[in-house]
């Protein structure tokens, strides 16, 4: 698609109306600094960037950049407006009110969304962003390239799969189930030899025979239930004086003393890791807060303020993750402590409850059990922390520990005297109880296996997607690298910076960088050795390669991109633009008068339009176009301000114009020594052109070729005025405005003489050197060498 017109109103530098009409051609727009060139680029970026202009993203521009977008002289009742007209009578119109809220008519929204699909990396390049791709971090390069490579959707798929596996883990409660399974299995294995249901079923069948249970129960659960009923029945038949052994066994199994030991151990670990974690947290998070502010402003490698390591912004997250692990360990220790405290308190309460059991108290109240009785009495007076069991203090722990030590010593002794018949009943009861957990264990295991297979499937799919992205990226980067190499060699022939390539980093996730060979030495980044000028040139090569990769026919916008290029490289760039982007519309903005003049003389007006902006005056006047395509308006702006400078400016413009024209025409001048050779004045060139023109410059008139004498007269007149008024050193009186105006007019007229009246092209546009002549497009104007 081609831009027909950019029409701005009260947007940035434009006042009531500023129109850039391209005639659907590529355009070169010249304007001095602050003449309003970038306002047109801003208008495009506002739409492409969904209301965001990158260079205006700062604290002063407002949340919608409204303070920077609106012309400061905008009347209160006016909105800012951007209208872009394309070929085939399509247009988009965006209205922006004073608060920065923009509206787009419904019928324009489809085209707006197409524009928003333009990738900035391959469509729009500004002066201060020429080397932006090089300056990106490896991760930013990856993110910037991904949409261009058409891989952003695959990347999104990888991300979705990652989110899904995380979400399945969370929603299926697989981790809790694993913990539960682990606990149940551990408990069961203290009694059972194996968790194999066949073996347990066999053992239960044998036990059932021992208890005269003849039913051949179909499954483990029902057999286990039948046995539990039978065993409980037999326990109920135990003689009263022996019943205390059952209670003592239960008390013993509460393992209150062991649980207290576990709580004490967990307390030590938690105290240690919590202290450590707090120190880490303070030492990491405080500097991390400052660190984030720094990395917003700098893409450079900097020292992590927490530990002093040299670290990239992208690596910072990894670093923080490690520190978070320490915090999580501390949190885990805290959780373990809480669990142990709760388990201990539960067992303590159970122990106290069991001590009130009649089967036990009748024995406990016997005089010979005074010692045990007094310990239980002390235990009943212990104040157990009610709200948070974790808050046991050292004194409480010491007191309870001493009591439990004595109680369990007596209970252990009693347990050893348990009659064998009771011991066997208890053992069988425990076995049956443990075997009853087997179905639950199996159910949990099956569910965990299923969910885990789903998680593995999602993770493997994510890995496969990422591998696919990597393989495709490598393939496309190879092609881009070839393009970059080709463009670089055009801009820098015979220079020993070779083998420039974009590559995927193997040791980092989502990372792309640029390597090259610098005078025979391999370099992993251009930032190590290339000068700023070369970095900019490489950045431009990458941009142009990406633009070439983009198969669309959308326009390419280049805003003042040659600031750091010397004349030679600017010339080479002109050739690259001519050769490589013949079929694309290019909007080229420049403040470089010399380059603009060269472009005017080299680019064919059939495909290119040349426009110049007048110097910007104030917000209410806004952007203004010059009538002429020459750059004399820069001089004209000085007529009433500084007339002397105006004359000099006009001369300087002619110096540039005529040096280019002389080169085009192959005008021979005497060699001068040193710098003087490069700083010839327009007078020298004019003299030589005037000398050669009578025998070389021909114009077709009424079917016959005639010397173009009117042009020679114009050049003679121009030369005379340039000598008189165009050089401050050459005249003694002061230049007055009317003289300056006359000088500019004669200069413009003299340059127009090189253009054909019929086709409007310069005389050198068609090179006919095989026929020893240059000519315009229609051939009516010729510069002959014979």
């Amino acid at each position, binding site marked *: *698609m081609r831009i027909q017109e950019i029409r701005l109103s009260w947007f940035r530098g434009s006042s009531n109306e500023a129109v850039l009409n391209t005639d659907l051609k590529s355009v070169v727009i010249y304007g001095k600094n602050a003449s309003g060139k970038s306002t047109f680029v801003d208008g495009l970026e506002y739409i492409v960037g969904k209301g965001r202009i990158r260079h205006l993203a700062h604290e002063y521009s407002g949340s919608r950049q409204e303070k920077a977008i609106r012309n400061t002289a905008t009347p209160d009742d006016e909105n800012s407006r951007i209208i872009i007209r394309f*070929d*085939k009578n*399509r247009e988009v119109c965006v209205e922006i009110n004073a608060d920065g809220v923009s509206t787009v008519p419904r019928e324009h929204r*489809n*085209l707006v969304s*197409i524009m928003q*699909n333009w990738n900035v990396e391959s469509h729009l390049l500004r002066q201060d962003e020429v080397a932006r791709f090089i300056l990106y971090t490896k991760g930013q390069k990856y993110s910037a390239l991904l949409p261009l490579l*058409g891989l952003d*959707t*695959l990347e*999104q*798929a990888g991300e*979705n*799969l990652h*989110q*899904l596996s995380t*979400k*399945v883990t*969370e*929603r*299926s409660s697989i981790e809790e189930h694993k913990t539960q399974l682990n606990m149940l299995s551990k408990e069961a294995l203290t009694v059972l030899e194996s968790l194999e249901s066949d073996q347990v079923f066999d053992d239960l069948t044998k036990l059932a025979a021992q208890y005269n249970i003849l039913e051949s129960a179909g499954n483990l659960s029902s057999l286990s239930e039948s046995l539990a009923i039978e065993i409980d029945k037999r326990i109920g038949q135990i003689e009263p004086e022996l019943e205390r052994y059952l209670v003592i066994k239960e008390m013993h199994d509460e393992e209150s003393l062991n649980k207290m030991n576990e709580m004490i151990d967990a307390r030590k670990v938690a105290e240690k890791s919590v202290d450590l974690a707090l120190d880490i947290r303070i030492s990491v998070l405080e500097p991390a807060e400052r660190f984030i502010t720094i990395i917003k402003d700098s893409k450079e490698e900097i020292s992590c303020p927490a530990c002093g390591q040299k670290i990239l912004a992208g690596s910072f997250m990894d670093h923080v993750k490690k520190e978070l692990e320490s915090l999580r360990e501390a949190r885990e220790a805290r959780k373990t402590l809480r669990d142990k405290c709760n388990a201990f308190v539960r067992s303590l309460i159970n122990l106290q409850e069991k001590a009130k059991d009649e089967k036990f108290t009748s024995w406990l109240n016997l005089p010979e059990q005074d010692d045990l009785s007094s310990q239980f009495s002390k235990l009943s007076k212990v104040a157990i922390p009610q709200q948070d069991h974790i808050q046991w203090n050292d004194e409480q722990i010491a007191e309870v520990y001493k009591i439990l030590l004595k109680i369990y010593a007596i209970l252990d002794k009693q347990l050893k005297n348990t009659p064998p018949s009771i011991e066997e009943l208890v053992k069988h009861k425990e076995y049956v109880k443990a075997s009853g957990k087997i179905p639950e264990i199996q159910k949990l295991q099956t*569910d965990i296996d*299923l*969910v885990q*297979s*789903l998680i*593995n*499937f999602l993770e*493997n*799919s994510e890995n*496969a*997607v990422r591998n*696919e992205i990597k393989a495709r990226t490598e393939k496309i980067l190879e092609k881009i690298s070839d393009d970059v190499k080709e463009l670089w060699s055009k801009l820098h022939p015979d220079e020993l910076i070779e083998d420039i390539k974009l590559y995927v980093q193997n040791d980092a996730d989502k990372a792309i960088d640029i390597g090259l060979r610098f005078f025979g030495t391999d370099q992993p980044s251009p930032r190590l050795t290339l000068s700023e000028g070369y970095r900019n040139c490489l950045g431009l090569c990458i941009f142009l390669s990406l633009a070439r990769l983009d*198969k*669309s*026919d959308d326009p390419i916008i280049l805003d003042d991109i040659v600031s750091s290029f010397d004349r030679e490289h600017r010339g080479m760039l002109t050739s690259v633009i001519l050769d490589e982007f013949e079929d694309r519309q290019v909007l080229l903005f420049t403040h470089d008068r010399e380059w603009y003049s060269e472009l005017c003389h080299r680019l064919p007006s059939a495909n290119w339009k040349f426009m110049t902006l007048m110097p910007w005056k104030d917000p209410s006047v806004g952007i203004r176009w010059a009538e002429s395509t020459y750059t004399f308006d820069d001089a004209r702006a000085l007529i009433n301000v500084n007339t002397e400078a105006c004359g000099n400016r006009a001369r300087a413009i002619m110096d540039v114009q005529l040096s280019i024209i002389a080169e085009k025409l192959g005008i021979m001048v005497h060699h001068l020594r040193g710098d003087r050779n490069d700083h010839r004045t327009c007078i020298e060139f004019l003299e030589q052109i005037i000398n050669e023109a009578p025998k070389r410059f021909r114009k077709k008139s009424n079917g016959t070729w005639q010397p173009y004498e009117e042009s020679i007269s114009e050049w003679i007149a121009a030369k005379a005025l340039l000598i008189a008024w165009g050089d401050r050193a050459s005249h003694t009186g002061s230049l007055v405005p009317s003289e300056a105006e006359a000088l500019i007019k004669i200069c413009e007229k003299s340059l127009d003489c090189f253009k054909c009246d019929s086709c409007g092209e310069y005389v050198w546009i068609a090179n006919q050197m095989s026929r020893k002549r240059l000519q315009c497009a229609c051939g009516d104007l010729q510069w002959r060498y014979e």
Partner: protein
Amino acid sequence: MVSGNTEEHSEDKNQVEKSLQNIIRSVSSENKFNGSSVTGYLLGLAEKGTLNTHQTSASVTRIADKMIKLIRGENLSEDSRD
């Protein structure tokens, strides 16, 4: 030209969706994943373009819940049968 661009864009999308489906099939078969209903569901998401476009946290949760039900062989409620 608008329609041309749109078609080109949707061709690219179709290609991505086909690539995704191939990846899912291949991972499912290489890993002998015992969840044909989940594989089918994920293939459907790839075909519809759901898998390669941004999903909100709520929609990821909905998809994950459905996958869990499918792998557990549970009945799907009316609202999750999409």
